């Protein structure tokens, strides 16, 4: 084994200093299921779906700095059971009704659920009361489906330089808020061209009047599972190479 490689399920993965385990793995063609990690943003490790076992201990692979000689277990029954439970928890937490959801087929949570073999929510549903925000003429916010991945928060602050979204509350009461004294999206400076409009993995941030323009059956995850597509999307070399992407950097 050379200095800059680690083992992922027995396969040797090369890495560059500063990369996290998932960044190096995806770049080298090793798939680790993930949800809140997005190759264009600094990993923050909240969904925990990318959890792996390293030298006997579990850790989120998106924030775990890659180190020479690590032995990473990912595709094992134990870890996939954990991931399945985490996805089930997300389904139980929000109000997810796939058959009537316009994001069905393009939804990362749904696609992960299929890929991990989630058959039911497995837990009692919380059925939270989360009113939608339809104030904006072109954009609908349906908070019922929010999984609190913070991708829109990160995109709006880091790319759009607007900080339209932020999180408030805590525990099960954690929720998305928007940057307006009225609390309504219409009073923010969000635009359809914003990066924040693209990144929602579920059906929270929706462009109005185009919901079913793309028919069911021809959507992103209809022809092949997410595990097959994720590797194609992984940038090579990934963003963040050369510095510790897991390290907090003061803005």
């Amino acid at each position: 084994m050379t200095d800059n490689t680690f083992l992922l399920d027995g396969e040797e993965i090369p890495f560059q200093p500063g990369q996290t385990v998932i960044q190096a793995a995806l770049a080298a063609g090793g798939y680790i299921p993930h949800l809140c990690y997005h190759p264009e943003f600094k990993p923050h490790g909240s969904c925990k779906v990318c959890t792996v076992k390293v030298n006997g201990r579990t850790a989120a692979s998106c924030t775990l700095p890659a180190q020479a000689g690590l032995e990473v277990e990912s595709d094992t029954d134990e870890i996939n059971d954990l991931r399945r439970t985490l996805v089930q928890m997300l389904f139980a937490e929000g109000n997810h009704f796939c058959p009537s959801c316009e994001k069905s087929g393009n939804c990362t949570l749904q696609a992960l659920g299929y890929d991990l073999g989630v058959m039911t929510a497995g837990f009692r549903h919380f059925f939270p009361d989360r009113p939608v925000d339809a104030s904006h003429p072109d954009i609908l916010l349906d908070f019922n489906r929010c999984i609190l991945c913070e991708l829109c928060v990160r995109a709006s602050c880091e790319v759009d330089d607007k900080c339209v979204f932020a999180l408030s509350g805590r525990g099960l009461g954690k929720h998305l808020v928007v940057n307006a004294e009225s609390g309504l999206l219409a009073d923010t400076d969000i635009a359809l061209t914003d990066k924040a409009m693209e990144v929602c993995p579920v059906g929270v941030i929706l462009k109005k009047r185009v919901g079913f323009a793309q028919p069911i059956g021809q959507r992103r995850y209809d022809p092949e599972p997410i595990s097959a597509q994720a590797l194609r999307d992984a940038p090579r070399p990934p963003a963040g190479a050369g510095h510790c992407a897991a390290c907090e950097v003061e803005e």
Partner: protein
Amino acid sequence: MTRPQGDPALEPGLTLILERHLGKPHHVLQALREIQEAFQCVSPQAVGRVADALGVPLARVRGVVGFYAFLGEQTRGRYRVLFSDNITDRMLGNMELLATLCEKLWVEQGRLSEDGLVSVDTTSCTGLCDQGPAILVNGRAIPRVTPERLERIAELILAQTPMDAWPAELFAIEDNVRRRDILLNDDFQPGDALRVAVARVCVPGSEVEAAANERSWREGIPGAALCAPLSTLEEIKRSNLRGRGGAGFTTGMKWEACRNAPGKERYVVCNADEGEPGTFKDRVLLRAHADLVFEGMTVCAYAIGAHQGFLYLRGEYRFLLEPLNEILARRRAANLLGKDILGQAGFDFDIDIHLGAGAYVCGEESALIESLEGKRGVPRNRPPYPVTHGYLQKPTTVNNVETFCAAALIAKHGGDWYRAIGTAKSAGTKLLSVAGDCARPGIYEYPFGTPVRQVLEDCGAGAGKHSTLAVQISGPSGVCIDASEFERRIAFEDLPTAGAFTVFDTSRDMFEVARNYAHFFAHESCGFCTPCRVGTAMLRDTMDKIADGHGTAHDLAEIQELDKVLHMSAHCGLGHTACNPTLDTLKRFRPMYERRLKSLDFEPAFDLDGALATARRMTGRDDAGAHLEMEP
């Protein structure tokens, strides 16, 4: 973005507060806390003003307001009464008192009264377990609530008496120190430890001298000037002092790692966010031994080369703020803080106090640092650790209040003196916050290695009608032990503890104890990671289901499953330990759970077999095949 002009009624007070924090984004929490205290809420207009004045996006300020339990965008009345809801408060009848108060004030729990005057609700443990039940009224602590005292409080509220005019004896808080050892007995005078520290010299030919010479070259400071700080650090290392916040990391190693971390600016942070239900020792240390705490911080600053310190004080201890600031002022006047401390050129250090606002998770050191920076108190990803990337991403040493006290004594008396006390792996003494079913609740200081039985005898547990059933060591994130384990010892190698020591006698229902703790964790989860955010709420609901008489063996199995998920994937210790009280009590007191179970197999949310009754009637069948599998 333009905003409507603020509420003119808010203006003068608000402007005054904002002026102090103008252009300082790290002051968001401090500004919000002051606004909350002045106006009993942080209105949406005030959120907008804070955002503008401090230069932080409005949504982010709103996110901070939403994170802390003591902040709110809606008013909770001119008087907000919060009943501490630790299990010890429960055992002293806090819920009955709460119901009585609600009746007197014509208000429903959790709701604002019709006239907007008052609201009554519960809050997590306020750190007054030795003199509960305790309440907070507009953030001010009132201990020992009895029906008589509550009657007076209700009258004061109904008469709309300003809080400043309430009788002072309502707010009188006792220290209740019951056993003193080296720490509480020391005849420490301000400056004692620092005078010894700055006078230390390198032993010729010692490792410290070699290190000083090497660093002198690297850091560009004369070797002799490094001898005293490095020798002080050496004493801390020699003492084998371990952190008193619970995790027990070696203090000397932490300080040394911080000193060695690259960067010029360093920070010392004292974690006084004592939120673990059942513990209150830091309250007493900060009230009766604050000089020792500040001196320990200053010793740390000297050893690691820091110039700024923070004391992060939990919001529940707001009543300590003015006395602590007075002591800081006295120390500045005595040249124990400020520039060139004790005449040592370049030994500059000062301490600011930051107040929390109701968030247990901020006791986790990286969440505490986030909160110090004015943000939501969400634990950071680690590595990097605070010793290299802490406050403002600079090297930061975070220690518990009691750790700094011990460090001051070590600086004064030396590391060898300290390591001789306690056990081989646990040097020194430990302060225990004893509460619950015992005759003499309060603070007990013991050398490490003291058996639980000794503590129980000294505090008068089991002396009454009932013997002692169990002790919760170190609060809900610690362990629950039963009578067969009372010979176990308070020490890192046996029963590590941050200090809480809660006694339960045989009249108590340990299921209800665990249920109270499950509610606590669900309430205090920061919500950052999926397993803890959802898992703690599921545990809470399952415990409630069992309490309501709908529990089954399936539910107990589900708790085991949740525990596994939380241990494997939660972001911080809160999630890792959330199921511990339930599993500990389930293991030791299983009958207390089983007698509540509806059946020992599975009970769905609705009656499946009952749903077949119509079909049985229509077909005239009642054989086993016409029934779902049932318990006999």
